[in-house]
């Protein structure tokens, strides 16, 4: 093996078979073992580690060829995470210019004619952070590839902070004594003050003297709230004679970004608390 280190072994497979038009010979591609297979090198950085919606982030990619072979052609692709968008015409490369450039919303592909051994190319471009980025992971992967080279990737992650633009929603609701067991509050069905509602994220909400509550800045998505019956001694959840779903002990709300959800709890006087 030590001797084979400096030798290049060429390997090619050949297959023959009898086709309808007589014998056919096909040859595979050549593979080179023991060749100089030093990969390309790619480094990705940005001008900041954290960004908020509205910010412009400048990414820099440095691709260098430490091998003794020419990488031709060289393809550089960059995949952006959710909510980040290229600023048009912001790509700058040095020292050579790309021969081809494809740009979609979240994908940038640059093609260079060749990268000589020991040479390097620097690519810089700008990206706009949109409010959608809050829901993404902010992780961005650049990739360089050339024939005869294994593809190399370089990730970079920026922390996306919500910023002053928020897509949080609001949950409103009420806790009331249901006298006709329909789950809705009508005249003569008073609210219950100081009832406690627990949210799935641990928020503890107290109703006001009219039995109403509202909760702002709720992250959108599926939210669940439940009534803490220990906070209203003598009451339990009222049966709902019209909608089976509202007999549940918890309320399930799909809150869209910036949306409004409702969680109503109907209660009725109780008995039988001794069951343990």
């Amino acid at each position: 093996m030590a001797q084979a280190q400096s030798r290049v072994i060429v390997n090619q497979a050949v297959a023959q078979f009898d086709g309808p038009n007589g014998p056919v010979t096909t040859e595979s591609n050549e593979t080179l073992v023991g060749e100089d297979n030093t990969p390309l090198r790619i480094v990705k950085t940005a001008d900041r580690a954290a960004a908020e919606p509205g910010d412009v982030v400048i990414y820099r990619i440095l691709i260098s060829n430490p091998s003794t072979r020419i990488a031709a052609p060289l393809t550089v692709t960059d995949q952006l995470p959710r909510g980040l968008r290229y600023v048009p015409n912001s790509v700058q490369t040095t020292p050579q210019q790309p021969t081809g450039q494809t740009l979609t919303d979240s994908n940038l592909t640059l093609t260079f004619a060749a990268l000589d051994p020991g040479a390097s190319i620097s690519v810089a471009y700008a990206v706009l952070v949109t409010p959608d980025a809050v829901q993404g992971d902010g992780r961005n992967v650049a990739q360089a590839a050339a024939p005869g080279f294994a593809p190399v990737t370089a990730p970079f992650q920026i922390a996306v902070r919500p910023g002053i633009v928020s897509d949080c929603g609001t949950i409103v609701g009420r806790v009331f004594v249901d006298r006709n067991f329909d789950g809705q509050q009508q005249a003569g069905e008073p609210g219950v003050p100081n009832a406690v509602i627990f949210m799935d994220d641990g928020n503890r909400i107290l109703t006001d003297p009219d039995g109403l509550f509202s909760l702002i800045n709720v992250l959108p998505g599926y939210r669940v709230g439940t009534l803490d019956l220990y906070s209203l001694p003598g009451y339990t959840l009222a049966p709902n004679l019209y909608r089976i779903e509202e007999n549940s002990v918890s309320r399930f709300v799909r809150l869209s970004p910036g949306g409004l959800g409702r969680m109503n709890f109907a209660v009725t006087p109780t008995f039988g608390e001794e069951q343990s």
Partner: protein
Amino acid sequence: MNQRQWIGWGAIALTIPGAGLAIAPALGQSALPGYGLRVTSPLDAPVAADDVLTLREALELANGTLTPTELSPAEQALVEALPPGQGSQISFALPEGETTIALTDLLPEIVAPELVIDGTTQAGYDAEDTYDPKFPPAPAVTLTVAEGSEVARGLTIAADGVTVRGFSIYGFRTEDRATQTTPPSDIFVGKALPVDSSPLSLEFDLSFLEQSEDAPRGVVIEQNWLGLTADGEFPAVPSAFGVTVFNAVETTIRNNRIQYHDGSAIITGFRADGSQIAENAIIANGLAGMPDAIRLEGAIAATAITNNLICANDGSGIYLYKPEGAAQITGNDIQFNGRRFERAAVYVMGSDHQLNDNFIGYQPGPGVAVTAFPLSHRNQIRGNRYAELDGLSIDLNTQGNTGVQDFQKGDGPNPPRNSYHRRRETGNAAINAPQFDRYDFTPDAAAVTLTGTADPGSEVDLYRVNETESAYSPLAEPLGTVTTTAEGTFSASLDLPPGTRVSAIATDPEWGTSEPAAVATVLAADGTRPELPATPMERPNCSPPAPPPPPVEPPAPLAPLRLQIPRNIHFALDRSNISPESAAVLNQIAGAMLEYPFLTLELHGHTDPRASAAYNLALSERRANAARDYLIRQGVPPERMRILPFGLTQRRTQGSSRIDFARDRRVEFIFTDLRGFDIIFREQETDLQLE
């Protein structure tokens, strides 16, 4: 605040038209033939042409869903046609010793107007066997649930003028199931509700609630024992609620004994205008549910609660929860309540209520609390007597206080009104408590002149105060009334012995009654302050009056009691059931309680420190409640026991081994000797339960 109201009205506007579209069914007001019916069988079998008439058959005959022609000749002999226009009458001729009607299913709702169901017609009923109308004689007919069955309601009354008399009704409740149930009760007044929301339940149309003329009118419930057996025992299966006046007007509930319910003795629902609740004994209710003895909600205009004994219930005696309309509460004895929740004896929400001439005492909370929200004005609270309260005799919540405690115990003495805006955020419009000019008054030759200030134009009721614990001790006895001048001063000359402590309340017809004044003392002529002898602590007692003459008790030996009984029981991990070993301990405790009537008991529930504080608080309450439940079944009067849950706050041990946790999981029994002596005890852990 304005925004809130807009939200509320929006919801109402959206929902009412939908409900109002449907047409209310007629409530059986058409002329039904009247029968005299004699029930001869306690069985609860399906309707059949056999030899005997059951209660179910009798009710169906009265309702018109069964005709006499469908009966056997033997049954027809028990049916007697009455002249037209007369309501049916159900009487009882059950065989001797078989007077318990055990239901296996709901009875049909009563839609026959003027029906009289009279349990006093059964042979063996002794109408003379009573000394107090609040404690009617023991019923001869029992209506209960067959063992192993679940029946939500005893009698459901949906017709005008129905009378239910002389029954023992107990055991009506529902078990845990997929959904909650509508409130079960011994007697339900109003059109029947489905028990739960399962697909098998009745089709249910709510529109009848909107029409007040469809509500049953003039139902009478009298001389029944609700919630306890005909022997006066705690039943094996307690009832959920006593009487639910769900949707009825001018219901009369009088001379009943209502005891041992999980929830309230009497609770109103949607509409209960003109209810008359008179001369009932309402004892030891709210044991495991809504804790208040009488809970008035919904429309209650012109309701009167008169001359009842309301004793040893777990929460308030009377709780008016955001009602519509005013109630009159007169002449009741409201005492030893708040066994489980430290609430006001009477909690008032709403305006124009009148509380007059009641005795309110022995409550771990204030006597009468008036809420700050919703706005509650012109509540007249006069002529009442108070004793042994933990709070003010009359507590007006102020400054819009709406915390958890404010809706249970009130918020204590108010500062004087310093702004007109206080009127809008204080019960009874922040009428100022009277203020005496001095903390002590020296008498003249014959009388002492008490002077002070109060709101101009108000009437000041002066009271004698017997207890000496605080400046706001309960108002024991009215001494008289004076009117304040236009300048807001008052003056009264009274002949009071030196050492008397006095207080006062002010009442303005426009605003209501105030909190009591800080106590002033009448000095001796030489300026000294003589101590009056303390009144002895009263023993908790809700029992029916003893037959006169009372037996002469031998004078109790006045020596400290030596109790060789354990004072704690232990529980398994996350359990609140009583183990056989704990039961043996509880038997000893019950024995001591029954032997020494001057003992009272506090049950302190505790847990080990694992799990959350809120969960452990609930668990400790269940443990204390289970122990009390056992003691009640052993015959210990509930008025002598009080529950205090402590959760994980007071551990028995310091360590974290299994045995330490086992010692933490306990109920402690704190005995008090009302004669004022200490008691000598010993510890036990024979019933320790390791995990």
